[in-house]
C-alpha cells in the first residue's frame, strides 16, 4: 500500500526522471572520492533518499544533488566514526596542485564543463560526464541513462559542440592547440 501511495505521488515522475539522469554521475562522483564501492553505494542511496524527501522544493536537481553529496559524505563518516578520514581532503582537487599555464588551462576547461553541466542540467550533461570524464563506452552510458545508442552518440556530439563553443568564447579557437 505504501508503494502504491508513493507511486501515485505527483513528484514521483520528476524524481525518477532525475534519478535516471543523475544516479550514475553522482555515484561516480562519490566513488572517485571515497574509492570504496560499498561506501559509495550507501552514500549515494542516502543522497537520493534525501532528494526524494525534498523533491517538492528542489529547483535544480543537479545543483541540489551535488550540494547534498558533500554533506552526506561528512555525515556518513561521522556516523561510522571513521575519524581517520578527512572529509575535506576527499573533496580536494588533486589537479590544483599543478603550477603555471597548465593549471590555468585546466581550471578554465573545468569551469566550462561545470558551467555547462549546471546550465544544461539534463541527460546530455550526464552523458558527457560519463563518456568524457568517467570513460564509459557509449553502450554502457546509454544503458545507464535509458537512451539508445544513436541517441547517446547524437547527444554527446551536441554537448561536445557546446563545450567547444564555450572554449572558443574564452579564446581557444582551435582545440588541437591544447594538446
Amino acid at each position, binding site marked *: 500500500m505504501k*508503494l502504491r501511495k508513493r507511486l501515485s505521488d505527483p513528484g514521483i515522475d520528476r524524481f525518477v526522471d532525475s534519478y535516471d539522469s543523475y544516479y550514475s554521475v553522482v555515484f561516480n562522483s562519490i566513488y572517485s572520492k571515497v574509492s570504496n564501492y560499498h561506501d559509495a*553505494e550507501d552514500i549515494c542511496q542516502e543522497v537520493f533518499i534525501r532528494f526524494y524527501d525534498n523533491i517538492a522544493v528542489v529547483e535544480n536537481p543537479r545543483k541540489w544533488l551535488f550540494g547534498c553529496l558533500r554533506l552526506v559524505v561528512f555525515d556518513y563518516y561521522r556516523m561510522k566514526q571513521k575519524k581517520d578520514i578527512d572529509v575535506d581532503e576527499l573533496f580536494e582537487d588533486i*589537479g590544483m596542485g599543478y603550477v603555471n599555464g597548465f593549471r590555468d588551462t585546466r581550471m578554465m576547461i573545468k569551469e566550462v564543463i561545470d558551467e555547462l553541466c549546471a546550465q544544461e542540467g539534463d541527460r546530455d550533461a550526464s552523458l558527457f560526464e560519463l563518456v*568524457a570524464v*568517467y*570513460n*564509459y563506452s557509449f553502450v554502457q552510458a546509454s544503458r545507464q541513462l535509458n537512451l539508445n545508442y544513436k541517441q547517446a552518440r547524437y547527444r554527446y556530439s551536441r554537448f*561536445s*559542440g557546446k563545450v567547444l563553443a564555450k572554449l572558443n568564447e574564452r579564446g581557444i579557437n582551435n582545440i588541437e592547440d591544447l*594538446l
Partner: protein
Amino acid sequence: MRETDILREVLKKYDLVLPVLPREQRRIYRSKRRTLASVLGVDRRSTLFTSSVVRFYYMMRNSGMNITLAGAARGAVFAAVTAVLLFTGGGILLFQNYFHTPVFIAGKAPVQDGYIAAAGDMKLYRNGVESLSVEAPYKVEPGDEIVTGDSSALLQFDNGAVVKVMRKSSLLVVSIGPQYRFDLRGGGVVSRVPRLAEGAFYEVHTPDAVVSVKGTEFGVIYGDSKTTVFVAEGTVRVKHIPGGAEYDVSGGNSTEVNGEKRVNVLTEGEAVIMKGFSGFHHVESLNGKNRDELKAISEMLAAADRAESQGTAAKRMTLAELKEKYGRLDEVILYSGRRYTGVIISRGGVYKILTAGGIVSVPAKEIKGSGVIQ
C-alpha cells in the same frame, strides 16, 4: 581526429578524467536498480515487490518502452499473476499426466458405474448436452445417452454387469441398479449380466422389443426397424412389443424378434461378437487402476472391434446394402423350413450365404431350394 575525440584527449591530458572500469560500470548499474528499490520500499528497504517493479521498469525502458514506474508496478503485478497461473496450471497438468490416475469428473467415490474404455469417437450426452472430456473411468448416470462412432465403448456396473456398446450405436441409460434399463436406439449392445438378486432386473429395450434377463451373456442389435437378439450363455426373455409375443432364447441361439418366435443358431458374425466380448470382465476397484491398466483394456476393446470388422465385414450390412453391393438378393430354403435371405457367395458341398447378420454356412444336402427374390 574529430573534435569530440580531441576534446576527450584534452581532458585526459589535463587530468580531468576519472576512469571507471567496465566491471565497475556494470556494478553501478545494478546498484542503481537496488537503490531505487530501497528508496521506494517500506522503511527505505527494498522488498521483493519493489525490486520486481524496478527490475521490470528498467527492463521495459531498456527495450525502448517509455513506461512510468506506476505502469511498471501494474505490469509487474500482471506478469506475476500470469506467471503464477501458468505455473500452477502447468503443474496440475503435469501432475495429472504423470503422477496420478485420471480424475473423476463427477466425484461420488467410490464409483464403479463407468466406462472402462471409450475407444475413438464416443460421445456422451447428458441432459441433451454433449459432455466434454469424457475419459475412462467416467461415471454414467440415468439419462445419459452414449453414442459410439467407429469404436465400441465398454461399461461396467455395480452388480457386475459388463456392457459393450458396439460401433455406430446409440444407447440411452434409463435406470441403473438394482433395476437396470437401457434403451437401444440403434446399433448393438452386448451384455454379460451375473445372476440378479430378487427384485432386480436387467432389460434392454428397443423400439419394438424388450429383452430381459436374470443372468446371462447376450447381445441385442437394432437396425432396419428389426431387433436381433443373440445369446451366448443362459436364457433371455424376449417380448415383441407390437404383437405381444413373448418367448425365451437360450444360449447358442439367436432370434429376430417378431411374432414368429423363430429361434436360430448363432450366425458366424454373432459368434465373433460374443467371442470378442468374452474377454471382458467386471473390474474391481476401477478407480484405482492406473493409466497403463486402463489403456490395456482400451486396446483389448479396439482389438475386438478389429476382429469383428475382419471376421464379419458384412454382418452389419442391411439387405438393402447387400442388394446395392451385389445387385441381387437370394433366398435359401432348408428342409427344416428355415429361410435365409442374403447373397450366396459360394456353392458346392457347403453353401456360404452372406446375410444381414453375417456369413452363414449351410451343408448343401440340407438345402431344399434357392432363388433370386428381388
